[in-house]
């Protein structure tokens, strides 16, 4: 389903839950009284995500990594001396 705000969905959507199991959202299982994401969904590749979600995950990931890196040094040097001014 195209979404003008969030882009084209990527990957495969989780299957709809059977009508009789409507009390649990699709992709959620009851494991000995604990609700958790169905482990079977982890075998789905690529995972279902919109452009917005992919961008959000990638951006958040990079922000986190650079944030951690700043705890350890003021800057990261490039592999070649001639690139040091960049």
């Amino acid at each position: 389903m195209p979404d003008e705000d969030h882009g084209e969905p990527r990957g495969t959507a989780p299957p709809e839950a059977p009508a009789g199991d409507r009390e649990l959202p699709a992709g959620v299982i009851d494991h000995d009284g604990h609700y958790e994401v169905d482990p079977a969904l982890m075998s789905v590749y690529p995972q279902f995500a919109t452009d917005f979600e992919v961008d959000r995950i990638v951006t958040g990931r990079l922000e986190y990594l650079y944030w951690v890196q700043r705890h350890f040094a003021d800057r990261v040097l490039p592999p070649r001396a001639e690139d040091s001014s960049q």
Partner: protein
Amino acid sequence: MTVTHEGVNREAVAELVDILGTERVIVTPQGRLVRAMVPAPFPFHRWAAEAPELAVLPETTEEVVAIVKLANRLRIPIVPRAGATGLNDGAKPNRGGIVVDTKRMNKVLEVDTTDWTVTIQPSINMLKLNEYLAPYGVWYPDDPASYPVSIVSGRIGTGGWSLLGSRYGHVRDNVISLEVVLPTGELLEVGQGGGRKIRHSSTGYRLKDLFLGHQGTLGIATQATLELYPRPEAEFPAFFGYESFEAGYRAMQPFCRSNLATLAGVILFDERKVQYLRRDDEAYIPEPESLQAIVAVAAYGSEGEVAAARDRLMRIGAETGGRYLGEELSELDWASRHDRYATPLHGRSRGRAVHMSWHCEDAAITYSQLPFVKQRWHEIADRYIAEHEVFDNWGMFFYTNNAYKGWGDFLVEIDIGIWEQRLDEASWRAWTDMKREITQVSLDAGGSISACHGATREGEVELVPAELGGQFDLMLKLKRMLDPNNIMNPGKYLLDQAYEDGGG
């Protein structure tokens, strides 16, 4: 001599409430159960049996002294617990009793920019400590995989190892002195001789190390004075790919012996680790099959020194046949070195993706023995995986282990995924049998069971006396002398033997 323990009775609860108030005495099932857990593989089927009877949350040294004196008088087991992020089980009770959760003891007491020390209540997280120190231009360099979540007192309790240890040393090198509440409630200041900020002394015995890595069996640290370093101006990480494990193994030597003072660590990934990454890590999926091993290096220091180190490391990579894996992968995979600890994990069981938790062995092994240990550990792991669907082999890392030097011995890690939800007594038994076989290989190679986590878990602790020999007998004597009633984390490290007739 036989020591018997008592349960937590009404008298004890009333006294603890007098010391701490009702809010900081935790008796709820949730509060107790959560303090039975550690991130090391955990026998959930035994969860309730391993929970403490209650937990307390002290905020001052005086409160810890009062709690320990009470426990010692009433013979109640007491278990110090810091972040409980360790990959051993030191922070988990074996005999119920009281968990002393120290997480509220997290104040910075002094930053000394003249003598370059920081004195803290030790239950502060290293990441938070470094954010506090950043405006002073100084830095505490302890960098475990658990850096974003673990706390200094847990690092003291385990005598932890740092990813940057070849440049900055490990926990034992960077804790200058400690204040410790002993099992009898006495308060001890211990360091390198007498001065709280003295880094080296030849006066008396070197007792500080006794209180680094004891897994909560000898006391509770309530204050620590730590080393400070200039904050690094620059970092340079580089990842090089090799076409075989043997090529990567050979390449480690020129990197490790490069005579670079800024070299913080050298890490070898074996072919099984590369296969695992190519299977489940998007950064590695595009890498060709010819990539069978990786050597990662990182340097820290002033910009001029790191720039010079960069040029030499890149040259060594080329001369040893390494293929530089690129700036993006090198920079970001090094930056994500803590995520293997902190992120949710999954593994494969019979080709199916399932939830798995992470276990890692962490033996200390000399360079010459690395190929032998690698071959044997994989043989053992693969044999158990063939028989049990709950395990997965995520490959091996080899990290420089020698403080301030890149050569000699290495922290050898095999990562085993464990499907904890499926653990039962039979698969738990298989797990501990696998651990025992892996541990025996470390000893056969002349190594040490643990370079970082400690060795208190079932499947390895049985072999600690074999590794330590006469040192274990001395441990028993020291335990009985310092903890006459065996209240401090009883049941760990086989130290109950100190209280058996003829023991200690």
